């Protein structure tokens, strides 16, 4: 399989030009929210949900525990909804040339042709390409833009939308529900195992813009799905804001793997709200490669609601330069004999800051549950920092819970040792970084491992490449 490294070439582009059909600008307000709802011709229940979320957003305080978000001025994000001047296409050739060119640079047509069962691409606030291969349709899998799902499958959407991650969770979740646009709805019927991954790709093309896509995945009993989420943006002169959401509902005995390769450009402030509910015997896997963005705040979470449900989170974050990655994983064991594993690795260099913020909670009655959390940070220079804030809540004594973490540094002794054996300094750093991430990479399927490895290589190119 040939994987391209998405977004890196775009980093070098000075401008990505395409026309927009509708732009809704201004401050977050009731009239603005209603205008977005009106432009989407939404049913009344969705309009009301948006307005309830808006009320909550206006009243909720900004979280104090994220000091660096105090610097974010939402009023500066002027464009809160942008519909590109593009009709939704299911064939690449139907897209305008300037838009198609973006996706070709990202390698998406090739990826879709070679290994994806379905692909949705969201440009700014709307889906512009929706490709679903025939075999996927024949299996009865539904993969449509979120707006289409609201119109076509209202009962199904009502049943799950905002049920896994309610807008009352925090201020930015409420903002998301007030302004959401774009995203994808995937429903996998009972017993269906999707043999190839499906992907949603999000592209934020302009500065001072907000993107609020919503992805909802429902895996019915005994089904299986691998979902890839990709994110990219060109280098912008000013900031843009991403406040996306992923909700996964894994019915009994289903398996869902959710893989994120986040490579926003360095001007994007990225809030990504991700949560799954796993019923009896279900398995949810999160793989998070958090590479780009100015600030990233994301904690993939799973509520293990059914007996024997399992979750695994594998996280890799890189903060190279004065960027902040506030990531982690949260698990609530709410049923007996549930299990969770979290492996987190972060690398900080050139003044970067990495924060691990995790939660393991074992509720009363979740007897025989097991949880193991392991996180490691590698600090490459004195300007960088690494903080770890794990939380363990044990409300049930019959559980087996462990958390361990360590911070490693690039040791001058090791550098000296390896240099005395003929390696150059940048080769030594490459070797150390490569060894550090190998634990994560070998836990991933080959394709994801290759993709992330290449991303890491490019990120540390200044050190002479990795691997």
């Amino acid at each position, binding site marked *: 399989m040939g994987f391209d490294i998405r977004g890196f070439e775009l980093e070098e582009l000075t401008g990505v030009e395409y026309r927009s059909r509708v732009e809704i600008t201004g401050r977050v307000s009731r009239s603005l929210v209603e205008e977005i709802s009106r432009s989407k011709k939404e049913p009344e229940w969705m309009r009301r949900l948006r307005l309830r979320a808006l009320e909550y957003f206006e009243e909720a*305080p900004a*979280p*104090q*525990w994220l000091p660096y978000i105090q610097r974010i001025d939402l009023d500066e994000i002027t464009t809160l909804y942008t519909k590109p001047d593009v009709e939704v296409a299911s064939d690449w050739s139907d897209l305008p040339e300037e838009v198609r060119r973006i996706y070709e640079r990202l390698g998406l047509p090739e990826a879709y042709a070679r290994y994806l069962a379905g692909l949705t691409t969201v440009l700014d606030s709307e889906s512009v390409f929706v490709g679903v291969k025939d075999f996927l349709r024949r299996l009865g899998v539904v993969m449509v833009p979120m707006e289409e799902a609201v119109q076509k499958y209202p009962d199904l959407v009502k049943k799950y939308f905002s049920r896994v991650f309610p807008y009352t969770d*925090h201020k930015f979740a409420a903002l998301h529900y007030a302004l959401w646009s774009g995203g994808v709805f995937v429903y996998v019927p009972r017993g269906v195992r999707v043999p190839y991954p499906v992907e949603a790709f999000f592209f934020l093309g302009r500065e001072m813009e907000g993107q609020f896509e919503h992805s909802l995945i429902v895996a019915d009993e005994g089904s299986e799905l691998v979902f890839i989420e990709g994110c990219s943006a060109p280098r912008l002169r000013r900031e843009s804001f991403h406040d996306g959401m992923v909700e996964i509902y894994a019915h009994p005995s289903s398996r869902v793997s959710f893989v994120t390769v986040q490579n926003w450009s360095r001007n994007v402030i990225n809030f990504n709200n991700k949560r799954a509910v796993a019923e009896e015997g279900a398995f949810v896997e999160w793989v998070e490669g958090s590479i780009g963005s100015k600030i990233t705040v994301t*904690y993939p979470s799973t509520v293990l609601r059914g007996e024997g449900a399992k979750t695994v989170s594998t996280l890799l974050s890189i903060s190279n330069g004065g960027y902040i990655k506030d990531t982690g994983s*949260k698990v609530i064991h709410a049923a007996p004999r549930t299990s969770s594993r979290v492996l987190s690795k972060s690398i900080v260099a050139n003044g970067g800051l990495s924060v691990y*913020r995790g*939660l393991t*909670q074992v509720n009363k009655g979740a007897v025989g549950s097991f949880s193991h959390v392991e996180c490691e*940070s590698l*600090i*490459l*220079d*004195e300007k*960088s*920092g*690494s*903080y*770890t*804030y*794990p*939380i*363990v*809540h*044990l*409300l049930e*004594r*019959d*559980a*087996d*819970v*462990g*958390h*361990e*973490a*360590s*911070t490693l*540094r*690039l040791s001058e002794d090791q550098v000296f040792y390896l240099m005395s054996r003929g390696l150059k300094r940048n080769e030594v750093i490459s070797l150390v970084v490569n060894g550090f991430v190998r634990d994560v990479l070998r836990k991933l399927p080959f394709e994801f491992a290759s993709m992330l490895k290449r991303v890491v290589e490019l990120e540390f190119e200044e050190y002479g490449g990795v691997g």
Partner: protein
Amino acid sequence: MKSLLQVVGDSPTIKHYINPYEYARLVEEASRAGSIGEPVVRVEGARVAQSPTRDEYAGDCSSVYCLLHKRYESARYDIEVGGAPGKAVVEVNSGSLFSAVGLNLVVSSSGLYVLELNLNSKGSLSLSLTVDAEPGSRLLLRVKAGEGLASYLRLASGLGCCASERAVLVESSRVLRVEELVSVDSASLNEKAVVLALGRSVVDVDVLGRARGVGPALHVRQLLVSLGESTAAARGTLVAEEGSKEGSLVYGIEALQLGGLAFMQPRLEVRTNNVAEARHYARNVKLGTEQLFYLASRGLDPREASMLFVRGLVKEGLSDAALSNTLVEEVLRRVAPHLEA
């Protein structure tokens, strides 16, 4: 009061194990009722004198509890222990609804010293204890808080050089918030804290440790034992300060739940890449049927096996034999009836 409540922070998950608003309301109520009094401090086995200074709160005093203490502290005493190894007992009593007192403990003994601190008031007590220990000293601080209103203990210490080891045993039947501040500057401190939460109490221990200078070592290990319907929480942050070199930070929390709940948050902030070691862990521990079977097959009955298990947990992390043995005896004496049950 509003300004005090504004300092209450939030967190992404559970907010506070003890509600600081309720505590602040309790103090406010005592203030309105004119029931803020000066506690009676009785000391045995040590020299005691009223301290003229009240500037112990520079720097890290930002919590609601500490700010309230600072506002209402009625007296501060110097307690000096030293010479031969030994034991001192400090009793704090008060007939008021709320009382706040400060203690400066100066330990000049290089041997093992045991300080017992008994909080006997039924009302709310706020106690600030600063520890100034001789280099190389070994201290066992035993705090016993009987039934009463929600109380606060602030434990601060600074060490300039050399190695020290200490153990803290907190036993509480009331709601108790403990804030501990530790700072090592080119020195080392090894601390083991055992928290026994009894009855329906809630004990929340919060540590802030800072490591500065060259080769600082700060190792904090906490064992939570929650008995009955109690809640024991241990959390805190160890910081390797910017510019520190070759520091060693270890923060470990273990929870033994004997009927109660346990919350653990061991945090690390590493602000330099020049650290020799920085790690933390949190886990629950239990004596399972497999371990019991293993020990039974070697001739130990379940009671002996449980005792051995607790002994191992308490000793872990302490290198001084006298200190660890004393701590083990103290803990076993209290936990044994529950283990048998």
